[in-house]
């Protein structure tokens, strides 16, 4: 277990992805048709990363993310960079959202560090801490087709070793906060949950960084309180989407980890008000002590428009500030 370092009470962060600006979307389309070079694309990805780091600083987030401007999909990105994968094609996620689903065609493993250079780049742009962002082994396995390994278990554990190496490389590069997303962890809550726990033990083994796992959109009550055994310091969860109904679940057994409370809906166009965010945090405080709470959006914001994203982040930061002031009795200025 690691401490939250010197982050403030009700510190704010984000889940990972931000929308890509129009110039980057256009460049990605061109890169796909080989109309621009890899270097040109990278330069624009860096520009977009710089912009998002600046936006987060301006809004006042405490723990930043790099915004994943260089990633398409959270699983395909790792699959593309690792051994053993091919991309099968586009598969629907919901509505008209599609993702390129990888297929495991051989033994999986790392060729080289995947995210370290981007982490270093983002961290070089700001004095605030930036989170290292990884996709967890169970989710990579679950969101890929498997034509190679006889069992899911073999695939998941092999991936856990690879993701663990990546986490240790991030730490060596200076990451003090590392997030390992497992949004698929409750896919087979009876059959596979122990496997997902075992895999995370392998990933975070020996790390001294503060670790977070983001879990969303599934039957969280079904895996609670078992999920408190996941080998990370913080669980980051989507509460807003379900109108904070999960708090009822958390009343049944004490929430023993830190929580990242999702206070803005990542899949609605409506921008929440500051008061709405503050109210969500106050509700959470009735169940979980402030010292264990960090504040974040429900999920990555990449499917939102840029102005919606900025609006939601601003409401989140200002809402957290309102409640922090109530708790500490101080008066920091908040935007009207």
């Amino acid at each position, binding site marked *: 277990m690691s401490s939250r370092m010197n982050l403030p009470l009700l510190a704010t962060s984000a889940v990972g992805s931000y929308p890509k600006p129009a110039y980057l979307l256009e460049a990605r389309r061109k890169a796909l048709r080989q109309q621009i070079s890899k270097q040109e694309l990278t330069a624009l990805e860096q520009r977009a990363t710089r912009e998002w780091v600046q936006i987060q600083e301006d809004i006042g987030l405490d723990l930043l993310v790099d915004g994943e401007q260089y990633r398409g999909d959270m699983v395909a990105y790792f699959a593309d960079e690792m051994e053993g994968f091919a991309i099968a094609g586009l598969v*629907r996620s*919901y509505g*008209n959202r599609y993702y390129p689903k990888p297929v495991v065609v051989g033994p999986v493993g790392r060729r080289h560090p995947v995210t370290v250079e981007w982490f270093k780049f983002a961290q070089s742009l700001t004095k605030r801490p930036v989170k290292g962002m990884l996709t967890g082994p169970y989710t990579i396995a679950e969101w890929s087709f498997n*034509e190679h390994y006889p069992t899911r278990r073999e695939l998941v554990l092999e991936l856990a070793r690879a993701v663990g190496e990546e986490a240790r490389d991030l730490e060596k590069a200076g990451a003090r906060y590392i997030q390992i997303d497992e949004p698929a962890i409750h896919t087979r809550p009876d059959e596979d949950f122990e496997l997902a726990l075992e895999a995370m033990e392998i990933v975070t083994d020996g790390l001294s960084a503060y670790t977070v796992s983001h879990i969303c*959109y599934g039957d969280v009550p079904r895996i609670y309180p078992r999920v408190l055994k996941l080998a990370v310091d913080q669980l980051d969860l989507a509460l807003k*989407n*379900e109108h904070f109904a999960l708090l009822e679940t958390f009343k049944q057994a004490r929430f023993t980890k830190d929580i990242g409370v999702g206070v803005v809906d990542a899949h609605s166009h409506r921008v929440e008000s500051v008061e709405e965010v503050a109210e969500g945090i106050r509700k959470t405080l009735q169940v979980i002590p402030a010292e264990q709470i960090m504040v974040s959006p429900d999920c990555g914001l990449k499917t939102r428009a840029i102005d919606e994203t900025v609006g939601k982040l601003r409401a989140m930061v200002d809402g957290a500030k309102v409640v922090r002031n109530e708790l500490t009795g101080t008066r920091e200025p908040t935007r009207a």
Partner: protein
Amino acid sequence: MITTVIGNYPKIPDLPAPGKWRSTVERFQKGQIDETQLQHVEDEVTAEVINEQVQMGIDVITDGQIRWEDAQTHFARRLSGFSINGLQRYFDTNIYFREPVAEHAVAWTGPITVSEFTFAREHSSKPVKPVVTGPFTLAALSRNVHYPTLKEFAIALGRALNRELKALEAAGAEVIQIDEPAICQRKQDFDIFAEASRVLTDGVKAKKILCTYFGDIGGLYPQILDLPFDVIGLDFVAGYRNWDVVAAAPFTRELQAGVLDARNTRVESVDELVRAVRRLTAFVSPGRLMISPSAGLEFLPRSVARRKLAALVEGTKVANQDLKGART
């Protein structure tokens, strides 16, 4: 022995072909085009996937459910009594649906799938099978804040969807498939499922297929055969235990056998299919057997779905020859 599919089909082609449906929905959501224009593209894509199934040689097709956002809200939005909530995972897949919420008494207010069925029939030279999400599954995947019990909710949905089945029948549907994947997960509620099924099918003369997938019917067999369905659809991939389950008692209905894995890209060989069919014909005669993928094909990229259909048709053809050979 004939071939069929379970229902949904990939809505967009593989890259780099443009995803017409996808970009049209995007434009519709942004208010750049109206609903008529969206429907026009949905019609085009539906005709395209119907043609694809017919060309591949599938004997009984569906319209691919191109117009369905998902199997729950497609009905919940068109029945009265529901509002629509946030995203939920669809069973153990990585597809998400918006959760229907029963806020008031649910009721059928008009045909939901009839125009889809008539459109598909006009565009297909092969028989078309309309699909309706069953009352039990719709209840199980919705949030119920109105009815005191799941049983009352499921039966009310059975009554509402009974009118949909009758409307399909009136439009000329000779076969109707009712999808009930949730019963594989919630076997303890079999009595509720049975009662809702009886209400659903009351007075419906069309041939009715009860389609289950994502699991097995262990514990529900053979009593599931007593329900008012002519055909039972089973998933022999995710529900591989079904191989043992059906051995426990004579299979007295027709069987729609999901033997190709609709959720993995590995394409089955002709040999695998022939072996599967031999196992199936040990307990169901070929004339009472339809061969299908284990679930809808929308879990796969379009090109892989097409290869699965090709494998299905070729494997069934060879299996038919194999059976003839065995008899002579």
